[in-house]
C-alpha cells in the first residue's frame, strides 16, 4: 500500500467535511503526509516526514475546526465506545483500523493518578501508518546460527525504526514456521483491534496487549508456549526480569531498547542483569546514512 492509499484509509475516521477537504488535495500531496493534525480554534494541518506543518486550504472554503469537531472525530474513531479504552487513553493515543493512531491532547480527567478521559479536547493527531516490509530481510539471516534464531536486542534512538524492524522480524520468523509470543503493551507493534492485528505481523504470532510487559510475558510463557518472546521497549525492571525468566526457560527473546550504543546500555542499571546473564546473543543497531537506514549486527559476548 502506498502512502496516499494509507492516507485515504486513515482519514475515514474524520468527519465528512474535513475528509472532503483533505480528499480535494492532490494524490501527490497526500503521499507526503505523515500526520494530520486538528487543533480546536486553529484549523487543520498536515505534517510531512521532516515534521514541517502546512495549513490545509486557509481560504474561505476551509473547514472550521472546533472542540465539537474533535469530539465527533473521537466518537467516530471509537464508534461511540470509549469504554474499554482506558489503557489506550492513558497512553495518549487510540489505535485505529489499519494500524493508524489517533493522538489526543486536551484537559485530562484523572482518577487515581491515571488519565481516564478528556474533559476538553484541544488537538488531535492522526498518525498515518505505512508499514515498511522487508526491513528485516537483510537482518534475519545474521540472527540465525546453526539453524536456530538467536536472542536479539534491537538498539537505536527514538524514531530510527526499532518497532518497524521488530514487526518485520516477527513476520519473517512466522514465515519460517517459528511461533512468537508478542507483548504489545502500547499497541504499536501489531495494533490489535477486535482481536485482529491491524499491522502485518504474520500468522504465527500470539499477542497480549492492554497489560504490562512483565505480566504479558509470564502469561504468554504459561499459556502459549512460544518459541520466541518479543517485546517492544524494555522500560521497567519487571520487563527485564520476565525476559530473563523466559530466556531461562529455553525461549529465545527479541526486544528493543532506546539507546545509541552498547556502552550506553551497559551504563544503565535496568539492562545490567540482562547483559550479565547473557540473555541476548545478538545486538542490532540502526543508523542513518544518506537518509537510508542501515543495520549493524554484532555478537554479544
Amino acid at each position, binding site marked *: 500500500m502506498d502512502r496516499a492509499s494509507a492516507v485515504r484509509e486513515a482519514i475515514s475516521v474524520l468527519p465528512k467535511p474535513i475528509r472532503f477537504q483533505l480528499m480535494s488535495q492532490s494524490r501527490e500531496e497526500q503521499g507526503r503526509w505523515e500526520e494530520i493534525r486538528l487543533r480546536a480554534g486553529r484549523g487543520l494541518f498536515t505534517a510531512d516526514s521532516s515534521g514541517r506543518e502546512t495549513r490545509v486550504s486557509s481560504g474561505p472554503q476551509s473547514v472550521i475546526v472546533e472542540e465539537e469537531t474533535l469530539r465527533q472525530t473521537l466518537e467516530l474513531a471509537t464508534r461511540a465506545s*470509549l*469504554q*474499554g*479504552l482506558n489503557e489506550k487513553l492513558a497512553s495518549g493515543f487510540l489505535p485505529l483500523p489499519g494500524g493508524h493512531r489517533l493522538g489526543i491532547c486536551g484537559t485530562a480527567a484523572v482518577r487515581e493518578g491515571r488519565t*481516564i*478521559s478528556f474533559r476538553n479536547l484541544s488537538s488531535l493527531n492522526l498518525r498515518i501508518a505505512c508499514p515498511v516490509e522487508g526491513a528485516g530481510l537483510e537482518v534475519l539471516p545474521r540472527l540465525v546460527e546453526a539453524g536456530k534464531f538467536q536472542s536479539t536486542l534491537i538498539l537505536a534512538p527514538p524514531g530510527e525504526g526499532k518497532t518497524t524492524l521488530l514487526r518485520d522480524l516477527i513476520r519473517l520468523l512466522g514465515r519460517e514456521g517459528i511461533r512468537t509470543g508478542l507483548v504489545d503493551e502500547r499497541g504499536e507493534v501489531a495494533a490489535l483491534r477486535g482481536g485482529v492485528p491491524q499491522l502485518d505481523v504474520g500468522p504465527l504470532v500470539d499477542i497480549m496487549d492492554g497489560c504490562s510487559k512483565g505480566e504479558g510475558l509470564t502469561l504468554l510463557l504459561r499459556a502459549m508456549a512460544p518459541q520466541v518472546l518479543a517485546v517492544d521497549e524494555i522500560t521497567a525492571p519487571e520487563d527485564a526480569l520476565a525476559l530473563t525468566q523466559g530466556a531461562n526457560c529455553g525461549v529465545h527473546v527479541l526486544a528493543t531498547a532506546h539507546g545509541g550504543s552498547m556502552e550506553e546500555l551497559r551504563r544503565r542499571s535496568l539492562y545490567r542483569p540482562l547483559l550479565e546473564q547473557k540473555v541476548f546473543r545478538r545486538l542490532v543497531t540502526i543508523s542513518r546514512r544518506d537518509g537510508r537506514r542501515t543495520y549493524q549486527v554484532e555478537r554479544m559476548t
Partner: protein
Amino acid sequence: MMKALGGVMIVAVSLWLGFKGMSWYRRRCRVLSELIYAISRMEAELSGRETETAELLKLLGRGESETAWLFRACYDDMEELEERPFREIWLEKLNESRLPLKGEERETVERLGHVLGRYDSQLQTRLLGGLRCELEELLSVAREESAREGKSALTVSGCIGLLLVLLLM
C-alpha cells in the same frame, strides 16, 4: 329496536375508548420496565466485559418489544456517526419510536444518549445506574397513576356513554 342497538353501540364505543386509555397507562409501565431492564443489562455488560456500544445496541435490539425497536434502529444508524453525533441519532430514533412516555420520563431516556459510549466503563456504569434509579422511581409513580387513572378513564368513558344514551333516548 334500532334505538336499543344504537345505545348499545354508543356504550360499547365509549367503553372501548376507556379501555384504550387504560391500556396506554399499562403500556407506559411496560415500556418503563423494559427500559430499566435494558439499562441493567448495559450496566452488567459494561462492568463485565466493557462491551462496545454497537454490540450493546445489537444485543438489546433483539426481540419484538417497542424498546428493542429503538435499540435496533440506533444500531442500524451507527453508520451515520460520520455525519452527526450519537446523541442526535438516539434522540431522533426516540422521537420516531413514539414510546408512551411523559415529560420527565422522556427527558431521562433522552439523557441515555449523552451517556452511552462517552466515558470510561466505570463512569458510564455509574451514570447508567443513576438513570436506572430515576426510571425506577418514575415507574412506581407510573404504576400508581395506571391503577388510579386507568380505572377512572374506564369509569368516566363508560358513564359518558350511558349519559349520551340517556340524553339521546
